[in-house]
C-alpha cells in the first residue's frame, strides 16, 4: 500500500477527504446512520449566477433571450426542481434507485479522475516509470542482412544438403545472386527493427537472426517459406530510448496508471470506514455471472 502514497497521491486523498468532510458538514447521507436523513431546509435562495446560467442556456437553445414570462417560468421551474429534490431526498427516494446510485458513483469516480489529471508528472517521475516498465518502451534491436533462399518445396528431400552446398559456395566467394532460388521478399534487407523483419519473415526467423555470427555466411535458417542462408551485415542492440523520444507516450501511460491507483486507493480508504456484512443465501452463489452476460445475446 505504501507506494500509493507518493507525494501527489497524498494530495489527492487530502482533497478527497476534504470533500467528505464537506458532505458531512452539510448533513448529507455520508455522515448519517443508514435509514436516517436530515430535515430539508425551508429556505431556497436562487442566486443571480444561476439565473444568468438559465438565461444563457435558453438563449443558446432558442437563439433568442427569454421573454419576461419565460424567464419567470425558468426560475419557477428551478424552484420546483429544488423543492422536489429536497423532499425526495428527505423521504429517501434516492436510496433504492439504481440509476441514481450509478450516477452518484460515476460522479465520485469523475472527481478522482479529475484530481489525478491535475498534476503534471515531472521528468524524474516519467523516467522512473519508464525504467519500471522497460518492455513497453524498448527500442527493438536492428539488423541488416543479405540472404539466399532455398525452396524446400521445390527441392524436396535434397533441400538440406543443397543448402549446405550453397553455403560452402558462398563461403568460397560465390555471387549470392547466382545461387539459390528466387523469392518475392527482398534478398537484401537494410537495417530494420526486429518487429519489421518479423512481419515479413515471421518471428522465429527474425529471432534467430539475433544469434547468428555476423559478417559471415551462416545457416541454413528455417522460415515459413523454406531455408535461408544468411549474411548478417550489421546488428544494433535494443535499448531503452531517451525520455524525449517517448515522453508523451510515457506520460499517457503514467497518468492512466495514476488515475487507476488513485481511484483504487481512494476507494480502499473509503471502504475501511465501513463494516460490510454480506448475508449469503443459497441462491447467491452462481447467479451473477449469468446476469452479467445476459445482456449480450440477441
Amino acid at each position: 500500500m505504501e507506494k500509493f502514497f507518493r507525494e501527489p497521491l497524498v494530495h489527492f486523498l487530502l482533497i478527497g477527504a476534504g470533500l467528505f468532510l464537506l458532505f458531512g458538514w452539510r448533513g448529507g447521507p455520508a455522515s448519517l446512520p443508514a435509514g436516517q436523513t436530515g430535515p430539508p431546509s425551508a429556505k431556497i435562495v436562487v442566486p443571480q449566477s444561476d439565473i444568468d446560467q438559465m438565461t444563457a442556456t435558453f438563449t443558446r437553445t432558442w437563439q433568442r433571450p427569454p421573454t419576461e414570462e419565460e424567464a419567470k417560468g425558468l426560475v419557477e421551474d428551478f424552484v420546483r426542481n429544488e423543492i422536489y429534490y429536497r423532499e425526495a431526498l428527505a423521504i429517501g427516494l434516492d436510496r433504492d434507485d439504481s440509476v441514481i446510485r450509478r450516477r452518484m458513483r460515476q460522479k465520485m469516480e469523475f472527481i478522482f479522475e479529475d484530481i489525478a489529471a491535475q498534476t503534471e508528472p515531472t521528468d524524474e517521475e516519467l523516467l522512473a516509470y519508464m525504467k519500471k516498465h522497460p518492455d513497453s518502451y524498448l527500442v527493438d534491436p536492428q539488423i541488416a542482412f543479405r540472404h539466399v533462399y532455398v525452396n524446400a518445396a521445390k527441392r524436396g528431400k535434397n533441400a538440406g544438403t543443397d543448402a549446405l552446398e550453397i553455403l560452402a559456395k558462398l563461403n568460397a566467394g560465390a555471387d549470392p545472386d547466382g545461387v539459390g532460388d528466387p523469392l518475392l521478399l527482398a534478398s537484401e534487407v537494410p537495417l530494420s527493427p526486429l518487429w519489421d523483419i518479423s512481419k515479413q519473415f515471421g518471428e522465429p526467423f527474425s529471432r534467430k537472426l539475433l544469434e547468428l555470427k555476423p559478417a559471415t555466411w551462416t545457416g541454413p535458417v528455417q522460415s515459413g517459406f523454406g531455408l535461408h542462408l544468411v549474411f548478417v551485415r550489421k546488428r544494433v542492440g535494443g535499448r531503452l530510448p531517451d525520455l524525449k523520444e517517448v515522453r508523451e507516450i510515457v506520460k499517457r501511460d503514467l497518468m492512466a496508471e495514476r488515475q487507476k491507483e488513485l481511484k483504487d486507493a481512494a476507494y480502499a480508504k473509503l471502504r475501511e470506514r465501513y463494516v460490510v456484512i454480506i448475508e449469503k443465501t443459497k441462491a447467491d452463489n452462481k447467479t451473477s455471472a449469468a446476469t452479467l452476460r445476459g445482456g449480450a445475446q440477441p
Partner: protein
Amino acid sequence: MTRNTYRSPVVSVLIALVLALPALAHDAGMLDKESAEKAFPAKPPYSPYAGRNFPTRPFFGDTHLHTGFSMDAGAFGCRLTPRDAYVFAKGKEIAASSGQPVKLSRPLDFLVVADHSDGMGFFPLIVGGDPKIMADPQGRKWNEMIHSGKGAEAAIDIITNFGKGTISKAILPLPGTPAYRGAWQETIKAAEEANDPGRFTAFIGYEWTSNTGGNNLHRNVVFRDNADKASRVEPFTTIKPLGSDNPTELWKWMAAYEEKTGGDVLAIAHNGNLSNGRMFPVVEAFGKKIDREHAETRARWERLYEVTQTKGTGESHPYLSPNDEFANFEIWDKGNLDGSVAKTKDMLEFEYARSGLKLGLKIEKELGTNPYKFGMIGSSDAHTGLAAMEEENFFGKTTPQEPSPERMTKTFFDNPKSGVKVMDWEVSASGYAAVWATENTREALFDAMERRETYGTTGPRMIVRFFGGWDFEPKDAHNRLPAAIGYAKGVPMGGDLLEAPAGKAPTFLVAALKDSIGANLDRIQIIKGWLNAKGEVHEKIYDVVWGDADKRKPDAKTGKLPPVGSTVDVANATWTNTIGDPELITVWKDPEFDPKQRAFYYARVLEIPTPRWTAYDAKRFGVKPLPGTTMTLQERAYTSPIWYTP
C-alpha cells in the same frame, strides 16, 4: 459532469493529452510506365536497390471495424472503444467484451475504426445514464432494462426502433448535438493517439449506413487527413433532413468536405450480397436514371469495393459463374441485411463484384464512363472492436459470437416471415485489406487505395503481385526482382492498359508468396471479363500457375487442373504444408484477346485447404457441429483488376 465517459475511465485524461503526431506528407502519385522507366535508366546504378520508388511490400489492415460506439455493436454487448480497437490491432493483448483475453498472431499495419454515423456514441450514453437520456421515457426505459439484466431485449428494441426511425429525436445524437460531437471527437482522438507513422496507421473514418428496406448500401468513409481537418466536419448520416440514404448525397458530402478543408476522403461500398440487387444498378437508382454524371461521380469517390468480410464473400456466385468451381465460397444469399426480404436469382447479377465489374464495362460502352471500376479489398465488419479474422483466433462478428461452445449451434438471425435464417457457423473469419504503399502512413496508404493498388484476402497475409503489360516474357518470372520488371514493363493491379500495339495481346506477370505462418498455395488463377461486339458480357477463368506442378497436370480432355488435395484433419483441426507450393510465379498471355473488346483481368490466389474456424471450435470446445456445417476452406486473395480499354 455530463461528460460521455465510456468504460475507459482514462478517456478524459487522454483528451487533454492528445498527441498531434505529424505525419509526413507524401504523395506517391500514379506509377506509369514513363516514371517507372525514369527509375530504371538505361545504365542502372551498381546497387539494384538504389533509386527504387515503387512499393516493395504490402501493408495489411482492416478498413471496417466497429466498436461499442456503433449503436448495434453496443446493443449486442460490445464495450470496447475505438482506442481499445487500435491497441488490439497494434498487437497488444486486451480483454474482449466477453472478458476473454485476446491477441493477434502479429500486429496489423493499419486500421480504420468505422463506427456507424447514425447514432454514433448512442449506446455509451444509454448505458452511462446520460441526464438527457434519462429525461426521456424511451431512453430511461432502455437504460433501466440494461441495468436490470434485460440488455438483450433492450438491444433488439433499440435496433428495431432505429430501423423504423422511431427513436425519440430528443435522445438520438444527431450531428450538431454535443453528444454526437463528443463521440466523433473521441473517435478522432483515438486515431490520432494510435497513429504511428512508419509502424502503424490509424485512419480516421466512419460508416455511412444506408439501409432502407433492409437493403445494404453501406459505405465506409476513410480520411486521408489528420484531426485538424477531420474535426471540422461531423459524419454524414442517413437520417433526414441532415442526412440521406442516397449514395449521391454522400458523394456530395464528400465533395463538400474536400472543398471546405482541402482534405481528401474516399468511400468503400460493402456487402452488395445483402443489397438485394441494389449495389450495382444499371438503369436507375433512387428513382433517377444512371447517367454519365452519376457514373463519373461514383467512379470518382468509390475506387475500392470490399469483396469479402464476416457476412460472406461477394466475389461471385455459383448461379452467376456456373463454370467457376471455386465460386461457392462463404456465400450469403438468403436475403437482405435484416432478412426481411428473401433473395431471388434475378438480384444476384447486381450485387456480386465480378458481375459488377462486367456491368461496368457495359455501362462504359453506353455512357463513356465505367462507374464500377473498383479495386478489391477485404475487411472484417466485426462489431467487437477486434479485427481478429484468423481461423484459429476468430473472435466473431458480434460480441455474442466471441468464442463459446454455443456459437457452433446458435442462430444468428431468423426472420420467420421471409424464411431467412442464418446460423452463427455461417459467419466467416474474413478478411483483411492488403495495400501496396511506399510507406506505412495515412497519406501513402490512402494514395495507394486511390490508385487501387490493393487486394483483398480472406484472412491470411499472403503477398500477391500482379502486373499487366504488352511485353512480359516467360523469363521475367525468373528474375530476382520481379517487381522491378513489373513496374518497368507494365502497370500494377488497379491500373489500365490502353492502345494495344498491333498484333500484341496483354501479358501478365503474376506472383504470390504464402503467409509466413500460413498455408502453402494451391494455384493462381486469372479471371477475365469482357464485353463482346453484341454488347454481351462474358467471363473466363484460367489456371495460370499451380503448386505440385511436377505431379499435377491439367486433364488432357477437359483442360481442368485436378484439385490440390487436402491434408486437413478436421477432428484435430490440423493440416500440413506437404502439398502446394510456398511461392508461385509466372507470366501469362491472354490466348483469346480481341483488341476491339473492353476487358478486365484480376488474379485469384488459392491456398491449400485448411481447417475453418468451426473446426477449431469443434475441437477446442468439444462441440458437435450441426449437419451441413462447413469445416474446411481454401483461403484466398483477390487482386484489383487491370482494365483494357480499346
